[in-house]
């Protein structure tokens, strides 16, 4: 029985402010060909100078993936002709990458899965060709020279679900490390899986197929699943297979041949003579390691252990670092982890979604949310009222207590005030009183309801109940 063998190569644009080998800005979305200079345009005589920040971000990522950091790392030239490649070679790495030999632990459908990371290295991005309907082509070089991190796994995946979980975890990790926006739609994160099938007993394999044109994690999942099925089908029907690159067709949900191995290029790698090797000093590497934040998987586990949160809450809250930070700030200010989790994942998230804000832009601070949760805990307002208070806090910027005071929303817990209302309610509902006394406990509801209506729901329900019972039973 053949089993799927899948490896994944990921390219992530780094978040450095400048490009890999020059001081041009590396931003996304600028006017075409405005962030360019002699170096990234590959003008004659220009020379690259390595962006140390980019090297640091790759080392940071490598360390977070449990990789070793090379002691002597080299850049290589990858030679091929293409108009979007200004020098007609890409400065990349080959032997002697920055980091290598890591691992990522996953949990897929309740099973632990361990994926080996072959390497995380550094290279420069290419530009972009734009083909016009009239047959002419334009070239856009803003992206040319933007630092790109390549993360390559060993072929350790056995299913599309494992690949999806890996990409979700990797994306979360990159967000935590702050090294990439990891936005697949903008091309800041690109994943290229390699799929084939192997007979574990005989070691026989189908030819490797690389899949390109994947614009989302879901597309990667679907494409891998499709490709596995396709190869099984070929095996069964005896349809010939070959080593090739296939393109994912999102609309039709199929892969089609892009190029075969025969036309694959020889990149003529050789060491980049314009750059001296990088020898990361151990002190530097240790400083980068020491500055690593708590990583998402560890944080998720801690949220379960320390706050007693359900696994689901812990995962959602640790999806990005800012949400987890926000949650912990709320907990620190008011305790009540589960309540905090509900508020952050529920009502606050709704407001964020409606306004299109990220959590770091939230108009309600963690301290303010904690205060609101506190007002429920101390009986000042009910949970229902609190849900109405939060949007008002969002709109006005006022604190919970300010909103409660301004709108007179505090629960009435003062016994003398409620006693008066209870007396009125008893007087106004003689039938209910009679029914209750006749043994119909449910009749109490009408009396309570009367009090609540009079107070627009602000009477402390517990106190009201207690006082009515005292009167009727007294």
């Amino acid at each position: 029985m053949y089993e799927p063998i899948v490896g994944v190569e990921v390219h992530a644009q780094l978040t450095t402010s400048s490009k890999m080998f020059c001081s041009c800005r590396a931003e996304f979305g600028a006017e075409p060909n405005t962030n360019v200079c002699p170096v990234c345009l590959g003008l004659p005589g220009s020379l690259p100078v390595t962006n140390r920040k980019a090297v640091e971000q790759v080392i940071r990522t490598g360390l977070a993936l449990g990789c070793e950091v090379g002691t002597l790392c080299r850049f290589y030239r990858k030679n091929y002709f293409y108009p979007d490649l200004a020098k007609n070679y890409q400065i990349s790495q080959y032997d002697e990458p920055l980091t290598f030999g890591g691992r990522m632990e996953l949990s897929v459908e309740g099973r632990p899965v361990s994926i080996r990371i072959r390497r995380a290295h550094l290279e420069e991005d290419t530009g972009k060709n734009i083909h016009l309907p009239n047959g002419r082509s334009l070239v856009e070089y803003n992206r040319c020279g933007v630092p790109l991190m390549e993360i390559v796994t060993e072929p350790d995946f056995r299913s599309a679900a494992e690949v999806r979980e890996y990409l979700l975890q990797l994306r979360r990790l990159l967000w935590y490390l702050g090294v990439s926006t990891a936005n697949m739609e903008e091309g800041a994160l690109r994943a290229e899986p390699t799929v084939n099938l192997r007979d574990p007993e005989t070691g026989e394999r189908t030819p490797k197929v690389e899949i390109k044109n994947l614009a989302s994690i879901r597309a990667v999942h679907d494409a891998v699943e499709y490709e596995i099925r396709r190869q099984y089908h070929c095996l069964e029907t005896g349809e010939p297979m070959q080593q090739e690159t296939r393109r994912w067709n999102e609309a039709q949900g199929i892969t089609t041949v892009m190029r075969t191995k025969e036309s694959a290029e020889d990149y003529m790698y050789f060491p980049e003579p314009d750059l001296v090797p990088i020898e990361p000093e151990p002190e530097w590497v240790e400083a980068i390691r020491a500055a690593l934040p708590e990583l998402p998987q560890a944080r998720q586990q801690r949220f379960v252990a320390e706050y007693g949160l359900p696994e689901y809450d812990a995962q959602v809250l640790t999806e990005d670092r800012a949400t987890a930070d926000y949650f912990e700030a709320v907990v620190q200010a008011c305790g009540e982890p589960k309540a905090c989790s509900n508020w952050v994942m529920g009502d606050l998230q709704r407001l964020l979604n409606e306004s299109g804000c990220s959590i770091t832009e939230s108009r309600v601070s963690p301290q303010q949310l904690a205060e609101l949760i506190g007002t429920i805990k101390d009986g000042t307002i009910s949970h229902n009222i609190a849900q109405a208070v939060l949007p008002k806090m969002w709109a006005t910027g006022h604190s919970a207590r300010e909103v409660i005071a301004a709108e007179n929303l505090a629960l009435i817990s003062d016994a003398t005030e409620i006693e008066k209302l209870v007396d009125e309610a008893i007087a106004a509902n003689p039938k209910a009183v009679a029914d209750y006394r006749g043994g119909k406990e449910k009749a109490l509801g009408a009396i309570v309801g009367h009090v609540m209506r009079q107070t627009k729901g602000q009477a402390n329900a517990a106190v009201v109940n207690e006082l009515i019972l005292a009167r009727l039973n007294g």
Partner: protein
Amino acid sequence: MAADTKETITVQLHELTAWELTQKLQQREISAVEAVEACFDRIAAVEDRVKAYLCLTRDQALQQAREVDARRASGEALPATAGVPIAYKDLLCTDGVPTTCASRILANFVPPYDATVVERCSQAGLPMVGKANMDEFAMGSSTENSAFQITANPWDLERVPGGSSGGSAAAVAAGEAFWALGTDTGGSIRQPASLCNLVGMKPTYGRVSRYGVVAYASSLDQVGPLTRDVRDCALLLGLIAGRDQRDSTSAAVPVPDYTEVLGRDVTGLRAGIVRELLYGEGIESDVREAVEAAIKTLDSLGMACEEVSLPHSEYSLPCYYIIAPAECSSNLARYDGVRYGHRTERETTSVYDMFAKTREEGFGDEVKLRIIKGTYVLSAGYYDAYYRKALQVRTLIKRDFEQAFERFDLLICPTSPSVAFRIGEKADDPLAMKLADICTLPINLAGIPAMSVPCGFSGGLPIGMQLMGKPFDEPTLLQVAYAYEQSCDWHRRRPAL
């Protein structure tokens, strides 16, 4: 015609060394504008025969000279050599001035920036006379590979000036510039210096910034001076040397005052005479005898000279002709007609067809040959057999020098195995042409500094002696070269044009 009769008797302004001119400028005997005019007068008189320049920048030179004169007149402290006109090899990028590398593919290329060395010379107040001819992309030893013109040797117009910095050398030798910058990948400064009776130095790899120097072979290329004597060489090296943040391979080694060692006693310095490169095959007897005579002079100055062997030097040629083409095949890949330079006007069927036609039209034969060779040695399956092997041999060659420098302060051999050959003589014999560099190639592979110093004549044609030093020990080379120069007058001879 005998060599001696080629000397001119009265010294004219254009014949002065840069240092002699500097003194006249400082004493306000003449102005920088007059110095520039002297160059252009000389150019008017001889350039149609020498053909050293691809482009003249008279207006710019006069503008720079006027500024220097104005600043000097106002009493401003100026760099010593401010006002001394200079020529640049046409692969040094010059902001707003065409930089063609003597190639059709860059015939219309105007860089938007200055090479670091040009910037430094400019800041030091050196007016730019023009851009000097060369072998296309610095590939050649005669300047015959220029796509535009053939430069003549001022000592014999029937002969080549050497190459690839032949235009720079011819310009200085003919009095069309007081000094020049060239580049040296396998001998391209030293060999033309030798053939034109000049002092030429290839500094230690990393001593001078390569930023803005159009690359031929990045791990071998180095910019250096072509001058009329050793002091000028020291002065110009001092202007261009030093760390440049834009070139990662430039070294953060402090730059000494290179003129300080001039005149210092050389007694006790140990010189190794490289057996393979003085007595080996292909070294003309006149060349050997002139260098032997020079060594006797050094002996008489108190230096200890004895033979040394560099056993791997015989592999320099094949090693160089793998590494240099490999790097060049990649460095020259960018000339594809997409962004700048020549683009084919023929019909094309695809972008790759456009690349192919553009490059077919734009590059000369020698360049194409090296690109093809370089692509071959880097190809899958051949990399280990050629490129990797060449890197290993390069290490052995380097080690030869390291071992020799344990015993010697410097090494000596001829610069060129022969005097200037006739134009066209070796054009159809590529191997003979490449053998012109056998004495100079090992130095680039080892990355060490070396210079050529005039040491005699044969049939009226100049001969050069090559001095090779430890990494960053340019001062010892200059010290010995200067001591030698003081004891002879070869460098004072000027060609009769």
